[in-house]
């Protein structure tokens, strides 16, 4: 009675098709890494001084601040939103931390306590913009644009045009000192990366963010508290912006709103070039690391190649267009917004 259970020719083809597709997907997730290696090889050959220990350290230092910023944005993008508040908020944190420590303008000197206080302020503001987005159901893009403009206004107001030069010995040491040859700022970035890695892979929060990004309906079905998780994402973003603001002030030795400029869009580019999809659910912290290096390598190499400043932006734009075109899934009825 037990009819021979056979799978038809079509069933076989279906299984092969699926295997081919998952292999393709595995290759696609490696695409950013391959692009990074290809870029390094090309630039080592062409750019003089690229492939050297000195320049390697240089890359590591320059990738520090963009990396921390993109780590902050990774979870936001994994959830399918975007956030531009870092431009104003980062500038504000940078300016305010300079005013709080021993500086050339006022006699306030909180020393090391300034850092946690300032990061708390950054988290507070980011939580507020998260509240507006989640509870008020406003598009995160526009909310963060408003918050960014308010905060950069306060930043400029805080030092009234004369940036406060940092005198605090701790900050000057942090700017120049290094440990095992790697400057402190880069260590901060490495530590932030490790925390982000743990957050993503070792905590419930990480899996919940991935679930929400993949399919919010399934996440609700599994019983995940979606709003609370989204809120925590904005807390993490606030923390990263706070760190970036402090690092910016340390690096330039003074507090000015310029610290926040040109932070957000390169960070979002790094996250996407690294392989995290803008509609959420794919990619992760390691992808962002690769993305951040791709962007930094391009900037560094263009300077080493002595490319004329006028066309540098165009070359950067073209390379990123190519990199994303290669690492983005293609399909006839795939909906890409």
């Amino acid at each position: 009675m037990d009819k021979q259970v056979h799978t038809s020719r079509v069933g076989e083809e279906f299984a092969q098709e699926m295997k081919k597709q998952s292999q393709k997907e595995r290759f696609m997730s490696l695409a950013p890494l391959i692009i990074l290696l290809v870029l390094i090889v090309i630039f080592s050959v062409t750019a003089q001084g690229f492939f050297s220990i000195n320049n390697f350290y240089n890359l590591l230092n320059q990738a520090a601040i963009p990396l921390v910023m993109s780590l902050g944005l990774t979870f936001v993008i994994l959830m399918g939103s975007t956030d531009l508040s870092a431009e104003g908020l980062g500038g504000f944190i940078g300016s305010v931390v300079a005013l709080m420590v021993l500086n050339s303008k006022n006699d306030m000197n909180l020393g090391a306590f300034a850092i946690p206080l300032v990061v708390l302020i950054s988290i507070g503001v980011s939580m507020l913009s998260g509240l507006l987005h989640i509870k008020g159901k406003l598009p995160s893009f526009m909310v963060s644009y408003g918050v960014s403009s308010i905060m950069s206004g306060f930043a400029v107001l805080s030092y009234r045009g004369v940036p406060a030069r940092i005198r605090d010995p701790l900050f000057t040491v942090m700017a120049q000192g290094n440990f095992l040859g790697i400057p402190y700022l880069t260590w901060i970035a490495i530590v932030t990366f490790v925390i982000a890695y743990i957050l993503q892979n070792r905590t419930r929060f990480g899996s919940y963010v991935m679930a929400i990004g993949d399919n919010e309906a399934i996440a609700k079905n599994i019983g995940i508290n979606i709003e609370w998780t989204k809120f925590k994402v904005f807390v993490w973003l606030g923390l990263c912006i706070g760190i970036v603001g402090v690092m910016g002030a340390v690096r330039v030795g003074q507090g000015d709103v310029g610290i926040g400029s040109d932070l957000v869009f390169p960070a979002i580019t790094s996250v996407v070039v690294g392989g995290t999809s803008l509609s959420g659910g794919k990619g992760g912290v390691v992808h962002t690391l690769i993305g951040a290096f791709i962007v930094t390598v391009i900037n560094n190499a263009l300077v080493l190649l002595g490319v004329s400043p006028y066309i540098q932006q165009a070359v950067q734009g073209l390379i990123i267009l190519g990199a994303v075109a290669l690492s983005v899934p293609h399909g006839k009825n795939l909906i890409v917004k």
Partner: protein
Amino acid sequence: MLLLSGTGITLMEQENREAKKMEGYKMKRREKAAMLSIAACAMLVNAAPVMAESAEPLTIAVSMRSTTSEYHMQYVAGAELFAASLPEGTAEVQMLPCEGNDDKQINDINALIASKGDNMILFVDANNAPNITSIAEACEEAGVYWCAAWNAPEGILPTSYKYWVNFQSCDAVKQGYDIAVNLFESLPTPGEGKICVLEGMLANTANEDRMKGLNMALEEYPGIEVLDDQAGDWDTGKALNITENWLAKYGEDGIDGIWCACDDMAVGVVQALTAKNLNGKILSTGVDGTSAGIEMVENGELACTIANNGWLQAGYGCAYAYAAKTGVLDTETMDDLHRMFLTNGYLVSADTLADYKATFVDSQPEYDFTDLDYPIAGPMFEE
């Protein structure tokens, strides 16, 4: 400051919550929201510290690029110095920052003219030279006396306008030349060596003139070789990254000096050098004479900077405009020297540092704004 920002935002938040708790009057969310927006605007607007009371006092408008550059804030301080020199309450200063957006500069000035009519005078550091033509047209129409500093397009001169009182500028080309020569002389083997060039913002008039000055200096010093030329957009962070890349590319002994177009970027350059404790060995230059610039010259990290003395430029700019407005000066009869003159930037290098600090930093220089010849350093165009 932070409390203010914190309360500012939480205040809006409380307004939100109180609006929701309105008992006894079941309002549709939309009505409550509209009422909230009026309250929010009124609350925020009248919280702004400087408010224009009635229209009588003369408005001294200062239009410049950005509030984040210390040098541009010197303009505002200079204008306030001039306002203080007038009898009490005759004038007050309004700042028009345009954050590098040329269209906004024109719009802001037009808006102020519409609001104040001819009861205002204007001091402008044009974000880019071409803006001067539109400003000139607007002021001619409205009968507003105004002065300009730094940028003006070729062939456009105050003499062809009635209300454009004067045009003063430090000679950006000469400045580019002076700091270049100073740098070349202070290299380990004076007159020879390899340098890198860090420009300001591409396609910005002041930047292009300083580059012309640099190129003039380079012709006179064949021994100097330019390794690379990059643009830092007047931004400290970018300058820092570019310098780090140069150090990686040419090695720490491959560069002898870095020509840098302004103090803000020089801060980034010096930070990058100090990270490799090369500050002092590789010298750089700056322009604007910001407090940071002066400090770096003091520590021997910067070969020289040029203090353009924003107080003097803005103060006397306003003085000229005010004089023309009150009839002390008549633009038709003014000679070319008074219509167009150079103010001397103050080259601050290790040796001239001492007396620069004496006159400008320790004591605020007293300006007698009635003596209109004081700022003139020389004619702009040698006949």
